[in-house]
């Protein structure tokens, strides 16, 4: 038996502890979300019909299953509030991801074309803000964007506007916050792909007479698609479920699904509906994941 296979045995045993942990604290909790999304609301603490009482035996289990209902899911479909929240979340995520790509791509390209020793410096500079507290960075923008904040002070001083602009509680503020917070997630995958690209390919296209814009669209961009895909996925999915940024910067005029879920849970105390909303959100997010996986397989097949 090879040394590698001998090594594999204890390595397999290493899976036991993390496996148990994830089943207990990831899979089982999901079972509860699913169960409660099929429960009725109750004026109680906790505010839903009780979970199975395993001690009561098989008969009680049958009764519990019979009591399940899809009323909460019907409510999600019939009530405009929820449909709008999902749609708004998707629109915001698409728009923000597009902005991130437009802004992140030139930055990543610039990083990839720096002299080698400077690339490491640039990489660190992009990563360090990520280490700064997420909430703190949003708070920083609240300071800057508020009515008499720095941005308005500068605009007034330069006479670009005649009176303070309302930034907070608008979509503009929310997009600034999202782009600001997620930019590293777009830059890093793009940079990883662009750094591996051979500059000679671009030079060859240029030598053969292609103008700069054509070099980009025919050579650079197609070769960077894996990085684009990874960056888009890493940004789009969390943004759909984002809660803190829209809550602090966009206010309560039009809610995203993360905010709706939070309100349903903490304010309305309607845990079954909150659970149902969570299930639907997960199903919605499976779509881009499956699309991405299919794209990756296709690229692998083309690569052969």
């Amino acid at each position, binding site marked *: 038996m090879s040394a590698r296979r001998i*090594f594999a045995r204890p390595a397999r045993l290493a*899976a036991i502890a993390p496996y148990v942990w994830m089943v207990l604290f990831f899979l089982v909790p999901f079972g509860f979300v699913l169960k409660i999304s099929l429960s009725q609301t109750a004026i109680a603490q906790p505010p839903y019909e009780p979970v199975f009482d395993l001690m009561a035996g098989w008969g009680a289990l049958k009764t519990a299953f019979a009591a399940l209902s899809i009323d909460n899911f019907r409510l999600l479909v019939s009530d405009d509030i929820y449909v709008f929240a999902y749609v708004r979340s998707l629109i915001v995520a698409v728009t923000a991801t597009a902005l991130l790509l437009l802004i992140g791509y030139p930055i990543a390209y610039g990083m990839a*074309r720096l002299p080698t020793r400077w690339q490491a410096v640039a990489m660190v500079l992009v990563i360090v803000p990520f280490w*700064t507290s*997420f909430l703190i960075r949003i708070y920083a923008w609240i300071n800057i964007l508020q009515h008499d904040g720095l941005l308005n002070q500068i605009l007034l001083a330069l006479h670009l506007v005649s009176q303070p602009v309302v930034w907070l509680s608008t979509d503009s503020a929310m997009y600034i916050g999202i782009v600001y917070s997620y930019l590293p997630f777009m830059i890093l995958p793009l940079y990883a792909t662009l750094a591996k690209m051979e500059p000679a390919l671009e030079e060859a296209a240029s030598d053969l007479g292609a103008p700069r814009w054509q070099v980009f669209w025919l050579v650079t961009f197609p070769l960077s698609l894996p990085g684009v895909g990874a960056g888009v996925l890493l940004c789009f999915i969390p943004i759909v479920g984002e809660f803190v940024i829209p809550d602090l910067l966009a206010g309560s005029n039009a809610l995203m699904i993360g905010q709706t879920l939070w309100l349903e849970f903490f304010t309305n105390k309607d845990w079954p509906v909150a659970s149902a909303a*969570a299930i639907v959100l997960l199903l919605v997010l499976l779509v881009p994941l499956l699309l991405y996986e299919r794209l990756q397989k296709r690229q692998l097949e083309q690569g052969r």
Partner: protein
Amino acid sequence: MRKVSRLSRFNVASLALGLAFLYLPILILVVYSFNASRLVTVWGGWSLRWYHEFFNDRAMIEAAWMSLRVAVSSATIATLIGTLAALALSRGERFRGRTLFSGMLYAPLVMPEVITGLSLLLLFVALNAERGFWTVTIAHTTLTMCFVAVVVQSRLGSLDRSLEEAAMDLGCDPVRAFVAVTLPLIAPAIVAGWMLAFTLSLDDLVIASFTTGPGSATLPIRIYSEVRLGVKPEINAICTLVIALIAVVIVIASLASKLSSSQGESAAPL
């Protein structure tokens, strides 16, 4: 012959503007934490006033202490379990339940935190577990161990496995080969994983809100509550202290990695 310049002015400008965009808000926040004026947007001269206010604010101090304890505890547990998971995935070859295992490890990476928080709260309620330090720690461990697993697994994947095989050919059993050969080589990744877990835990608001209990709010929860009521100068000071803490952790880690790499170089000729 016309040649595409490797680095155009547009590229330099994009890079400079991007980095400025990333750093300016933080710098502004730090500067205003030394503002003497109570009005957050009017500069009133230099002062340490808001730092004094923070250290006299018992609720904030307790929240900061809670956050630190949770972050250290969850990062440590997450690093232990996450490293085991990475080892199993990269060295365990095939085993029953592997697909489910990797699915469970990768899902939390992309899942919205409101869902993670909601599901864990429902678990703790069902178990009648009293919510506080341990429920938050468990929740943060569950989230961050997935990041640790990815970081360490990536490092394990790039190792030359013949080193481990050589050790076993020379008589080591697998565990000893791991401790003597593999563990030192992945130590930098483990440290990086711990730091990442620590930072993510310290930073988390959503999951902590779901899994904490009365009287055990974490610092982000405190800051969030205050921020929703409007900006206050005390928050600037608190935020600056958090930034300073994380900066210190990063510096210590980079110094440690430099030290270990220089030792590695000096050991090479032996």
